[in-house]
């Protein structure tokens, strides 16, 4: 599927930013909705187990 160039750039920047060491502890409560849009605080980098619990 085709993604816009601006989204691809944002993903690339996001990967780089999230790869940097965290300088403060995350304090926010979980949010999974559109309220998050526009907030730049990086979330912790999480390995997702998916089904990989073997």
């Amino acid at each position, binding site marked *: 599927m085709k993604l816009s160039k601006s989204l691809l750039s944002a993903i690339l920047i996001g990967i780089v930013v999230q790869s940097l060491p965290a300088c403060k502890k995350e304090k926010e409560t979980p949010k999974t909705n559109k309220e*998050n849009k526009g*907030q730049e605080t990086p979330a912790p980098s999480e390995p997702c187990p998916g089904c990989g619990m073997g």
Partner: protein
Amino acid sequence: MKVLSSIACNLDTDLLSAAFPLLEEERVEAIEWSFDALFHVGQIPPWFWELLTAYSKGGRLIGHGIFFSLFSGKWLPGQDDWLRKLKQTSTDLPFDHITEHFGFMTGKDFHQGAPLNIPYSQLTLEIGRDRLKRIYEACRCPVGLENLAFSYSPEEVRKHGEFLERLIEPVNGFIILDLHNLYCQIRNFSIGFEELIALYPLDRVREIHLSGGSWEDSQIDAGRKVRRDTHDESVPREVFDYLEIALRQCPNLKYVVLEQLGTALTTAESRRFFYDDFLTMSGIVEAANGSARLPDGSSNRCNSFLPLCPITPGEIIEDEILYEQQLQLSGILETAASYEEALGLLRQSSLSHSDWEIESWEPAMLETAMKIAQKWREGWINGKGQ
């Protein structure tokens, strides 16, 4: 309907780094997101939300839950919370379908432990059906379950497909056929692929998973190696061969998903293998898309996998005895210092001579269940890479 080559895509910098070239080259036709992995962490970065939104708007975002604990004998507060968050997430970000894992979660806390198998009884069937209705009620899209990688005995392996089919019947659901999970069963119990796949309701397969795993030496059964679905290696050649066969036998297939853990994608070499695995997978899928996949000359049949009649969950089905047995089993698997200790405790427990059929569990598989439970008992973040 075209089968879509997809990746399991989560907020993981190593995984996203590995996937980025594929996204940039427009090769990723759909993404599967484990939405509940982020229920307990901080904010979702806007760029990741935009990525999910782009696929959702294209009708190509699928959700894969991990933590609902479908067969817990007791309804847990965490399950109410999980459903509430799924409902909100599905409103904000519509999914094409939602899936969960088969089993119940070990561990004292809702977000700890690993999904383990359950007895295939009328009681667990009713509990599973009840929970699937509740998931449907929350997400209002097709609901499915994934086949397990782990079993205690070959008898259990042979019953799994039929039990899955009965579980999903009331919601007209579907199954994820995880081909590496089948590979684990094939290698661990010396069953042929053709024999095993025939035991699954292939017309109910809407999604296929591909991944890699690892081998572990059994201490209790010298010389035996147990295959585990650890998602930390490239896809074995045999699993790609299974895909070619499955594409011809699953008339309602829509998604083929490559899964790998980010913790196994930290080097340039491992990312290259991930990229190559995706190209191999999408090449097989494209070849099948370009031909009449099915023996009758058609490319697919059509099942919406939406309930055929209104779904109204009744009273929550619970069973205190089952729940106690699950707690006992979790406790034994997580804390026993040796196989012998675990076996002794199981024989003294209420699981002895019950629907659990612990008398038929293979020693190497009980040993493996202990390793899995002890790996994940502190939660999957701490359990990574062990």
